[in-house]
Structure formats: structure tokens, C-alpha cells
């Protein structure tokens, strides 16, 4: 437990905005850039933007989740951290679970905050923004879990980043369908399903990720 706390204390400053793996500010800016570009591309009709804006925020969030993947595991595996943890009897699963928490904290809440200016740019009303925010709260843990599993699986692969992006998109479709779908129906059912999916993914991620890290070490 003490070891895991020490690892969390190391992970958080590494992954949070301004951290040394500096990935987190970049996805946020990318997210805002998409929200900013969209009105230029489809034209400034307010009713069109208000109707489609929520969906755009979801797509932008999904794409932004791809960016930090290459920094999640590769440097630690390369520098021998996972070997040293294994020798101390710290299970890969536990390390991956801690990293999932740190990864989500580094991109889930900041993304929800960034949804505020994005909603302003797209002219979304308060009610829709509330649904988007709740949906992101339910969906981002699942996105983080998918990203983490893919990062662990592609850690030893050359050109793994591009591959990770390609792999994440289809796997994230269910989250998008339920999360963004809640916008159209306005109901809580979509968000609840999105949250249920997220929970399932979060429960699987440490085991899948841990096994993938062990396999990468053998290679």
C-alpha cells in the first residue's frame, strides 16, 4: 500500500498538466482547437451549432484521449521501472490500477472544465452542457481505461502510437453512442449505460494492462 502511494505520488506530477510527460496540456488544446475549428467549417448558424455542438465536444474528447497514450507506459518500461517494481513484489496490475487513476485525473476533469469554453464557442445552452458534462463524467473513465489497455498492449510495438489511435477509435464507439446519444434523447438512460460501460472497462483494465506489460517484458 505504501509502495502504491509512493507510485501515485510519482505518477500524478508526471501526468497532470504541466507535468514532465507534458502530454496533458496538449490534448486540452487539441480539444479546444477542434471546438474552435468546427464553426469555421460548418458555418456560423446558431441553431446548427447548438444542435450538433454536444456531439462535436464528444468527438473532440475522444480524439484528445488518443494523444497521451504513448507516454503512459513506454518510458517506464524502457527505464527499468517495471523490472524494479516486479522484483519488489509489486504486481503490474496494481501499478496499472494506480496509473489508471492518475491518467483519468490528468485528462477527465480537465476535459470537463475545457468543455465550458468549448460550449461557449459552439453556443450550446446550459441544459445541453449539463448533459455533456455528466456524460463526460460517466464516459471519460472508460476512455481512460481503453487508452491504458491499448497503451500497454502496444508498448513494445514500433509505431505503436499511430496503431493505438486506430485501435482506440472503434473500441470507444459504444461509449460515444451512449454518451453522445444521451444528448439526442435528453434522458439519463444513455448516461447510465455509458457509466456502466466505463465501470466494466475500469474493472478490466488493470488485469489486461498488467498481463500486457508482463508480455512486453518477456519480448
Amino acid at each position, binding site marked *: 500500500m*505504501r509502495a502504491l502511494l*509512493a507510485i501515485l505520488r*510519482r505518477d500524478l506530477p508526471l501526468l497532470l498538466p504541466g507535468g*514532465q510527460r507534458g502530454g496533458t496540456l496538449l490534448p486540452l488544446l487539441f480539444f479546444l482547437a477542434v471546438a474552435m475549428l468546427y464553426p469555421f467549417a460548418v458555418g456560423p448558424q446558431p441553431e446548427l451549432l447548438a444542435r450538433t455542438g454536444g456531439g462535436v465536444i464528444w468527438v473532440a474528447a475522444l480524439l484528445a484521449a488518443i494523444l497521451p497514450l504513448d507516454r503512459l507506459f513506454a518510458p517506464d518500461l524502457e527505464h527499468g521501472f517495471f*523490472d524494479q517494481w516486479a*522484483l*519488489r513484489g509489486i504486481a503490474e496490475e496494481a501499478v496499472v490500477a494506480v496509473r489508471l487513476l492518475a491518467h483519468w485525473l490528468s485528462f477527465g476533469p480537465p476535459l470537463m472544465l475545457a468543455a465550458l469554453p468549448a460550449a461557449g464557442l459552439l453556443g450550446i445552452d446550459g441544459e445541453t452542457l449539463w448533459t455533456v458534462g455528466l456524460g463526460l463524467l460517466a464516459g471519460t473513465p472508460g476512455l481512460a481505461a481503453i487508452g491504458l489497455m491499448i497503451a500497454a498492449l502496444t508498448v513494445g510495438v514500433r509505431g505503436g502510437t499511430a496503431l493505438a489511435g486506430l485501435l482506440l477509435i472503434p473500441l470507444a464507439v459504444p461509449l460515444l453512442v451512449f454518451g453522445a446519444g444521451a444528448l439526442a434523447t435528453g434522458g439519463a438512460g444513455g448516461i447510465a449505460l455509458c457509466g456502466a460501460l466505463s465501470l466494466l472497462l475500469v474493472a478490466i483494465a488493470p488485469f489486461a494492462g498488467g498481463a500486457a506489460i508482463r508480455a512486453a517484458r518477456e519480448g
Partner: protein
Amino acid sequence: MEPCRLAATDLACRRGERLLFRGLSLDLGSGAALQVAGPNGTGKSSLIRILAGLLRPFAGAVERVGGVGLLDERPALDGHQPLAKALGFWGRIDRDQESAVERLGLEPLLDLPVRFLSTGQRKRAALARLVGQRAPIWLLDEPLNGLDVHAVEMCEALVAEHCAAGGLAVIASHQPFALPGLITLTLAEFAP
């Protein structure tokens, strides 16, 4: 120090399509020190990783009693962190009280980010991490690489102390390693 034993029976190692060694057995107890010698590419590092349990042997089994400390070319220290913080991370995990920082002459370097350290300085930092771990089994992969004459003597003295205190050490190195009672295992004899 807790009792320790490291035994391997009939180990074989295959990397890719190539069989590196086979039929290797060893049995080390408290206080033993073994040097694995051999030219590059004979499987010294692979043997160390198999003994550490980080690599599955192609055949055979390894039995370990006691914790394992590993020193290889990767120091597992965060490059952007000052050395004090990078070592402090492992200190928290290992509950390190008496650190070897002073003995290894690392004190003047504590404020420097790890990425600015030279190869030898990094190796010394990794040695400090290893000492702080207080594991009875030491597996050292090319511990002398990049060390100057003084640091080589320091490293040899640390291993000698470790063995005298009841630990055991396996040293994979193509360089001579001065240690009383050091057994040598020539890996080339186990090549297929």
C-alpha cells in the same frame, strides 16, 4: 540479513531462434559470490534476467529464497528529477534508512537532474538504490561499466561487504572483478 539461496537447475535460454546456453545449473547460498564471464552475446544479461525471474527460461527452473536486487544498464531513475528526489522515490518504497549516498560520493550531485549525470555517476546512483533495497540476493549486470578506478574499488568493496553480511551476489561482467572467494562461471562452456 535474512537467509538466502539462489539455485538453478538445467537452465536453457533461447532468444529468437538462437539457443544461447543450456544445461546450466548452480546453487548459491549465503555469502557466495559468482562471476558469470563470457564475451558479448553469450547470454550473460539473459541469465541475470532469468535468475531475477523477469525472463522465463526456455527450460529448467530457478529457485529463490530471499528478495532480489537487480542492477543493470537501466537505473530506473527519473531523468528530469533531481537525484535526491529520484532516489527518494525508491527510498519510500524500500523504507530506506541508511543510505549509501555519502559512501558513493553522490552528495554533491543530489541537486542535479538525473539526465545530466554521466554514465558512471548514474551507475553509482543505481548502486545506492540497490544498497537501499537491502535485498539479500544481488544480481549485477555489468556493474563496472562506466565506473572510474575509484568507483570500481568502491563497488567491489560494497559487494564484498554484502557477501560478508550473509548476502549473495551474481555478477555478470566481462571485466575482472576483484572479490575474495569469487567463483567464476564461464558461460561459453554451456553453449550448445
